């Protein structure tokens, strides 16, 4: 019964999409005339009128949707997700210029392809606006620590000072590159913060892993079974075969001929390029099928999880 309900729902979404598509096609000329840049831009009152109108429209639309009951809100979100994904699916699967799908050869090519750049552009900008969510979240956490003077509050203070300094000098050097602060060019301040603090801190944080992997190898890499021995041998061959000292160890063997197969770099390249390749390909098949399943589940809003289960 549930699948029938879902089928009806997606049929409704498709009908809405077809209706919207039909509307866009019929009214494409007046719509294109409407959505034109205003020549005077910010100096023209019509520009600000259009901006105000858009804001009122958007706020009004969402205020109206806010009054709807929760199940209907959920349907709207599901529908929006479905229609968004439907765009790329149709863009790929519908025939393009000089292509045929069964008996259909569209005269002007796939109508969705010209919009691909605009969709990508819009996604880029929207994703850019959403970046500050992370910054706000971090700031809230550290602000709480600082205001309540919790243990380690000075770390939160350091976070804020570093955040403000980097953002300030970055923006300042970007928009006023010749400005000076404290006797130094702002670009120099930015350079010290980025090149001499951020880069070394980040690089060192990752490089600490070298030490941890060495101790992990000592404590945990135990050859308890034949398979583990196989794995260790492969690891040794790959480690030696990719560095000059390993190449030097078997350098007395000829570069060509049957004995060349015993050269450590040849063995390493064979392990990586044949056995590892095939094993990773097999894993990749599974990953790709899982990727498709996940994409379908998200597209059809079948996914369950903390975010998706949040109450509206």
């Amino acid at each position, binding site marked *: 019964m549930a699948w029938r309900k879902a089928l009806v729902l997606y049929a409704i979404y498709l009908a809405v999409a077809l209706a919207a598509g039909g509307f866009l096609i019929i009214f494409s000329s007046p719509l294109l005339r409407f959505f034109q840049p205003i020549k005077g831009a910010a100096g023209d009152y019509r520009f600000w009128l259009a901006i105000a109108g858009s804001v009122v429209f958007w706020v009004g639309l969402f205020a109206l949707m806010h009054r709807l009951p929760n199940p209907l809100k959920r349907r709207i979100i599901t529908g929006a997700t479905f229609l968004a994904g439907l765009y790329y699916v149709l863009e790929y699967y519908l025939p393009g210029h000089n292509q045929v799908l069964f008996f259909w050869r569209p005269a002007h090519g796939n109508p969705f392809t010209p919009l691909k750049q605009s969709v990508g552009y819009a996604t880029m900008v929207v994703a850019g606006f959403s970046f500050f969510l992370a910054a706000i979240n971090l700031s809230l956490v550290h602000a709480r620590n600082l205001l309540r003077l919790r243990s380690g509050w000075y770390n939160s203070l350091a976070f804020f000072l570093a955040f403000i300094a980097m953002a300030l000098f970055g923006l300042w050097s970007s928009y006023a590159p010749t400005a000076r602060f404290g006797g130094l060019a702002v670009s120099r301040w930015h350079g010290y913060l980025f090149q001499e603090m951020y880069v070394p801190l*980040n690089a060192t944080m990752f490089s600490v892993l070298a030490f941890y992997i*060495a101790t992990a190898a000592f404590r945990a890499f135990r050859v308890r079974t034949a398979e583990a021995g196989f794995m260790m041998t492969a690891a040794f061959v790959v*480690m030696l075969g990719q560095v000059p000292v390993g190449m030097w160890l078997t350098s007395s063997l000829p570069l060509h001929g049957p004995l060349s197969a015993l050269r450590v770099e040849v063995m390493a390249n064979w392990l990586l390029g044949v056995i590892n390749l095939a094993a*990773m390909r097999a894993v990749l098949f599974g990953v790709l099928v899982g990727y498709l399943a996940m994409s379908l589940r998200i597209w059809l809003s079948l996914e369950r999880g903390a975010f998706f289960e949040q109450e509206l």
Partner: protein
Amino acid sequence: MGDYRTRRLIWVLLAAAVMGVLIYPVRMRMLVSPPAYQLYRAVEALPKNKLLIVSCSWEAGTKGENAPQTEAILRHAFQRGLPVAIFGLNYAAGPMLAGDIAAQVAPEYGRKYGRDWVNWGYRTGGSQMVAGLARDIPGTIRQDVNKTPVDKIPVMRGVNNIKDVSMIIEITPSLTVPIFIRYLYGVYRTPIGYACTGVMAPEAFPYLDSGQLVGMLKGLTGAAEYETLIGHPAKGMAGMGPQSFAHLVVIAIILLGNILYLRERARSRRP
């Protein structure tokens, strides 16, 4: 306590091995692996009238591997006089770090910013941005890092869409290369090269075998191999001595750990 002493001893050994070889360098011969050679050959065959895009989606954290790779690839491109565009997908710092490298390397070959290379900067949007980029590059990128509109940059003249791009080389520590493989190679057959950290290299071999990647550089050794091929040893080759001895230390540590484990096991089995 003993465990802590053992850990610190291992760390001191490792640091000593690496720093010792940096202070007293050991000259070693580097043989080139097939994936690096394939990438070199692919770049050697690129036409000079199409743009080479170098996607530097790496961060300062993996500078040790990705920076030498970026330098080697840019050197090769500038040597050959290929028009180059740098940008980054995942990490904000990548294009800036790569831009600094390009700014140092380009003058050595008489290449000028704007005329021979451009830095588009960082772009958000992931897969959707790449899919849109294929259709309209100037419309998607719009400006470079210096806020110059791309239509005013000489190297971008005639570059409209993916058909005007000769190749994309993705330099990254993360798995962003499938984005280019799916939406650029998969749809438009744009050649894709890959320069990754050592960790990601084994997972990329299936793409290399199927032709979805034209070549690959694996970590610092990949950079060293590429420097050998272009005849300009730099940070990659300089790192091979310490890398070799670090590997020997790790192998010795693993063997020692297993010897101690077997000895302990034999002791515990004795009645």
